[in-house]
């Protein structure tokens, strides 16, 4: 059995940052494994621990810098990684359809039994790449799942899709399929020291879109990026922690919001 996990690196801005043109200046950004993909990796590794002969392969569309993040996934139990990149991809906002076409090229090469993807990337938050990949690669799918039960003999999986307001949809999905993994589905492990050491030896292959036979161009471009105007009129309590706490407590009492 082979599981493909899509893994993306996300950028998180510092509390204070500056925007240059249409992007946040790099010195204010910290890069990390996308939170949702951390859960997707864990889910795949758990399946590989439950069944014999399971290979977990990760795929990332991203520049060389992303290899640090990919190594994190390898350290947590991914067996082998693929990174797809071409400098032409670096200029614009990569739309989810374009990313999906590239990932679909890898699906075609690897022919996984199923794919785990994250519900969303923390920075771009399109929430769309997994389902777009399924359609592009001709796979079935289920979006936003918080429970996954594999039935290898039936060639299907039973999942729970987490809808709004605490409602869960119970659904059976025919394999091969893409599942977009929601946080909380499992407890992602920390990489062990041994895992981190072993990750250095694991294969991390780089492919270009041309290698995959995929010819893509983003259909989106970011024309402006700014810190939104806060239309709100927040009243700030200022001073030391003791002072602000006293002001807030006095306010709450005055408003008769709190009895104590």
């Amino acid at each position, binding site marked *: 059995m082979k599981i493909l996990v899509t893994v993306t690196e996300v950028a998180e801005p510092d509390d204070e940052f500056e925007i240059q043109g249409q992007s946040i200046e790099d010195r204010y950004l910290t890069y990390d494994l996308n939170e949702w993909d951390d859960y997707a990796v864990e889910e795949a590794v758990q399946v590989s621990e439950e069944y014999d002969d399971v290979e977990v392969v990760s795929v990332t569309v991203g520049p060389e810098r992303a290899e640090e993040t990919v190594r994190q996934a390898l350290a947590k139990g991914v067996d082998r990684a693929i990174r797809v990149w071409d400098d032409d991809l670096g200029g614009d906002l990569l739309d989810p359809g374009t990313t999906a076409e590239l990932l679909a090229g890898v699906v075609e090469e690897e022919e996984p039994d199923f794919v785990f993807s994250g519900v969303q990337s923390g920075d771009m938050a399109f929430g769309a790449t997994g389902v777009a990949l399924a359609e592009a690669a001709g796979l079935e799918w289920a979006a936003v799942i918080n429970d996954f039960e594999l039935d290898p003999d039936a060639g299907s999986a039973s999942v729970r899709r987490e809808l709004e307001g605490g409602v869960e949809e119970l659904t059976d999905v025919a394999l091969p399929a893409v599942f977009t993994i929601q946080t909380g589905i499992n407890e992602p492990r920390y990489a062990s020291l041994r895992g981190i050491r072993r990750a250095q030896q694991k294969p991390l292959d780089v492919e270009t879109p041309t290698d995959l036979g995929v010819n893509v161009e983003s259909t989106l*471009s970011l024309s402006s990026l700014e810190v939104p105007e806060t239309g709100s009129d927040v009243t700030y309590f200022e001073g030391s922690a003791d002072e602000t706490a006293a002001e807030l407590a006095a306010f709450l009492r005055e408003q008769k919001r709190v009895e104590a």
Partner: protein
Amino acid sequence: MSDVLAVAEHRRGELREVSHEVLTAGAELGAGELHLAVIGGDVERFADELDRGAVDTIHTVAEGEEFNHGVYVQALEQVAEAVDPTYVVTPNSVNGLDYAPAVAESLDMSLVTDAVGVDTGGGLTVTREFYGGKTEGEVDVFDDRAVVTIREGEWDAPAGAAGASIQAFDADIDETALGTTVNGFEEAGSGDVDITEADVLVSVGRGIDEEDNIPLIEELADAMGATLSSSRPIVDNGWLPQDRQVGQSGKKVTPDVYIAIGISGAVQHVAGMKGADTIIAINTDPGAPIFDIADYGIVDDLFDVVPALTEQFA
């Protein structure tokens, strides 16, 4: 002139509010014909309810009771073939994101999700957030045709009856191609505390750092006679039970006072608490989106402020 196809959403016999909002966003996207697709469930009742605003034609596809993405994708491919829309507009809901990307891919249209604003003067430009709501960007769409998913609650429901033409659309659904079977629904279990009933909620987020620090917030809630709630990561980590979670996939709360401590104010969290009367935020990051909706704020370390506040009520 651009024709637009909007898509309604319903669940367990009820239309979801966003079904009205797609009509308003759809009218903004195109000055041509505004179509609405209503797929599955009690389509005639839904069509009557949605005959509002600027909608010209409502296509009802009587196919199944509940949402099945395979049915939606096939039906929308066929409706789109009939009406040839420039833009397709759908909810950015959990189900919207279960079919819209596939529809875009299959119709070879560009896709922009989670729109909070649209502009069509000179091609399509979509306003959406990036980096967890810390920035907002304008996205130019190069393709002539696009699928746009809209954030719930950003557009008003249209006013006034439309007198649309309501037409039964005879979709040809290939049942053998449906790869998913929906077996039913379950409500996440509820425990002994109902946070939707509380007058004052003290709510804790990832800023608390570790499970061992949760008692700090519990003590504050106790001292104030308030109820403890949280953002999602706290529940994901198993530090508090699911019934304490506020937000899109948790509970919608409307207390008199909501104190958000170490919570950034992600859209899915805000969806559950923006109806609170007075919102107070304690956060080290002055740029945290929670301050966009807060009435009162303290920009400081919760580990300093919370114990001091507890002291005030001791």
